[in-house]
């Protein structure tokens, strides 16, 4: 886990080669920031209505949105973390990619199209459709904000780690400054550019990331005359583990508990994706449900290709650089991809410096874009679900609602700068996994029951959202993620009685169960007329926004 979601141990960087390249890395990064700010200002000028702000005017094509969805999904954790995990743990690093990809089928087959047809701006639109608005909107808003903040925190803390790795900045002040810079940029992207600006930033980032990964993949394969078996063999040999490097078990095979933990993680990854609010709101940016389907297909193609390339990058780093050098730079392997880039360009040469700078800038771009997407999801849900529909009971004007969204963005930005600065040296391993587990336990059951189960009631929705949310947060609180182990957030105390790092194995079935029980024992009759509306809308697109 910690290998992929990185960021743990404080990184000691002695006189590293990266600091020499600092000016080049910073210049490239500045170019990216300048370009995305220009896009943001341009998009901001075209953002007038609420539909522009929340849904990018619903005018993106399926391909554009497919790219943007991929951009939102491929975080720095995927790029640096999976490459590093494969480089150090071989096959077990690759296991993640598969869960992350298969998950998209849930979105494609069950969620994307009905959601696009029946909602307007947020996940809460669909969850609350048949229910009493205020309680269910509140629950949907709380769950959206909790999931997004956990995810956001991991990205912010990751930014601090990246900076120390890539720029050689190790001082606390330096890391806090970077976290603050990321926070300010994301506030600017979201408040000025809204969904339109954010979508374009995601697209630019996705293209850069794919191009960077493709370039490195071709260069790695070139070194092995495009013989993949040779690459695997050399990686196994250099790893010191031999054939075991190519088999499952190096990371998760140790004990019965670690095996169960892996199963729990696997389930959370597969069922969590289709409940992540920042992914779900992307489907509102295209004009029809058909376009939503096509954008998921593009995303599956792009993300699949990317994860296939991480195999070459991870095993390539193991084969060409070796575990000792990778661990020396970052014990979790997060520097493997940049190290590989420098090696491929030629260590000590201009080519190496350029490759390192390009790949590092791509990694920064990745963090910035993902953070902007998460912020937009949570501020949209605050403004549309909680402010407009709960606090103002649907009487807010469009202008007031957008103003609330912008203030919410600033508030969320400030909160995540503060939390990110505090969490910069904490083990945030659990945070992203927790975000997936909450999404799978609280959001997915409610989405599926709402769309497909006639007897689902307000009480069922509340039980499954709050039940899934609290059980997953509660279990993580008493898990080794928080206390009891050297890698925990609080290593010096031990109140962990729940052995698994990922709560999904318990909390996901619980979320489904509570939704069912809550509906069955509910005194109120389900609203049959509203369900007729929702069902017909979701399958046919009649009256869709």
């Amino acid at each position: 886990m910690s290998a992929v979601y990185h960021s743990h141990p404080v990184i000691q960087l002695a006189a590293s080669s990266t600091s020499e390249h600092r000016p080049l890395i910073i210049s490239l990064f500045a170019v990216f920031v300048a370009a995305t700010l220009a896009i943001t200002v341009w998009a901001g000028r075209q953002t007038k209505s609420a539909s522009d702000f929340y849904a990018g005017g619903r005018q993106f094509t399926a391909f554009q949105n497919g790219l943007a969805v991929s951009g939102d999904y491929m975080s720095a954790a995927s790029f640096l973390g999976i490459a590093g995990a494969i480089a150090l743990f071989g096959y077990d690093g690759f296991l993640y990619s598969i869960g992350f990809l298969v998950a998209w089928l849930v979105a494609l087959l069950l969620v994307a199209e009905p959601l696009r047809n029946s909602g307007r701006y947020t996940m809460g639109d669909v969850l609350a459709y048949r229910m009493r608005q205020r309680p269910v909107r509140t629950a949907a808003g709380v769950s959206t904000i909790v999931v997004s903040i956990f995810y956001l925190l991991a990205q912010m803390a990751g930014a601090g780690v990246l900076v120390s790795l890539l720029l050689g900045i190790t001082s606390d002040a330096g890391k806090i400054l970077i976290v603050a810079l990321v926070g300010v940029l994301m506030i600017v992207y979201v408040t000025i550019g809204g969904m339109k600006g954010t979508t374009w930033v995601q697209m630019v980032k996705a293209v850069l990331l794919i191009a960077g990964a493709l370039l490195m993949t071709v260069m790695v394969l070139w070194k092995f005359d495009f013989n993949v078996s040779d690459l695997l063999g050399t990686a196994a040999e250099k790893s010191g583990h031999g054939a075991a490097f190519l088999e499952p078990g190096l990371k998760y095979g140790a004990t019965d508990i670690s095996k169960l933990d892996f199963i729990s993680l696997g389930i959370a990854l597969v069922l969590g994706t289709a409940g992540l609010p920042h992914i779900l709101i992307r489907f509102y940016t295209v004009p029809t449900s058909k376009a939503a389907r096509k954008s998921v297909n593009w995303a599956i193609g792009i993300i699949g290709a990317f994860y296939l390339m991480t195999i070459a990058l991870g095993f390539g780093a193991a084969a060409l650089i070796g575990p000792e050098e990778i661990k020396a730079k970052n014990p979790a392997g997060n520097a493997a991809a940049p190290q590989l880039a420098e090696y491929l360009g030629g260590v000590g040469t201009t080519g190496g410096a350029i490759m390192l700078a390009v790949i590092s800038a791509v990694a920064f771009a990745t963090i910035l874009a993902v953070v902007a997407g998460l912020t937009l999801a949570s501020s949209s849900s605050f403004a549309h679900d909680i402010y407009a529909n709960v606090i103002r009971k649907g009487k807010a004007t469009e202008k007031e609602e957008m103003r609330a969204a912008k203030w919410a963005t600033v508030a969320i930005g400030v909160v995540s700068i503060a939390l990110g600065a505090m969490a910069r040296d904490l083990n945030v391993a659990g945070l992203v996994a927790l975000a997936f587990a909450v999404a799978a336990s609280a959001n997915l059951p409610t989405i599926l029951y709402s769309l497909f189960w006639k007897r689902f009631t307000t009480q069922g929705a509340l039980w499954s959202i709050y039940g899934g949310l609290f059980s997953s947060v509660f279990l993580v609180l008493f898990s080794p993620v928080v206390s009891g182990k050297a890698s925990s957030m609080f290593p010096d105390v031990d109140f962990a009685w729940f052995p698994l790092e990922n709560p999904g194995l318990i909390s996901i079935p619980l979320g489904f169960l509570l939704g069912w029980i809550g509906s069955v024992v509910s005194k109120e009759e389900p609203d049959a007329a509203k369900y007729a509306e929702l069902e017909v809308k979701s399958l046919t697109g009649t009256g869709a926004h």
Partner: protein
Amino acid sequence: MATDAPQPPGRTDDSPVQPTTEAFIEAQNSAEFAELRRSYRSFAFPLTLGFIAWYLLYVLLSSYAGDFMGTVVVAHFNVAFVFGLAQFATTFLIAWLYSRHASTKLDPKAEAIKSRMEADA
């Protein structure tokens, strides 16, 4: 009809044509809609259970059948590697199968119901 409470004056949003609740109930009870629902559910639901079972099989084998997964198939490729690539392949395949089913079997039915309802509204 709308997802949200009635729009206050001064709100300008994309407001699509909304049929009445009665029209939605009537549509839900129609044979045409029942056929669309059946065609969607009988395809998507079993397929979902299928790919989740296939993925869980992979996860369980990786955890509990290390020896089997380590069996060499050819050169440096073992069962685990082939199984992993097969998960990629089936994901692409299922996405393609579903999309083909949706565009040939579901879209025409959905489109017919939608255009009739919006014309009546």
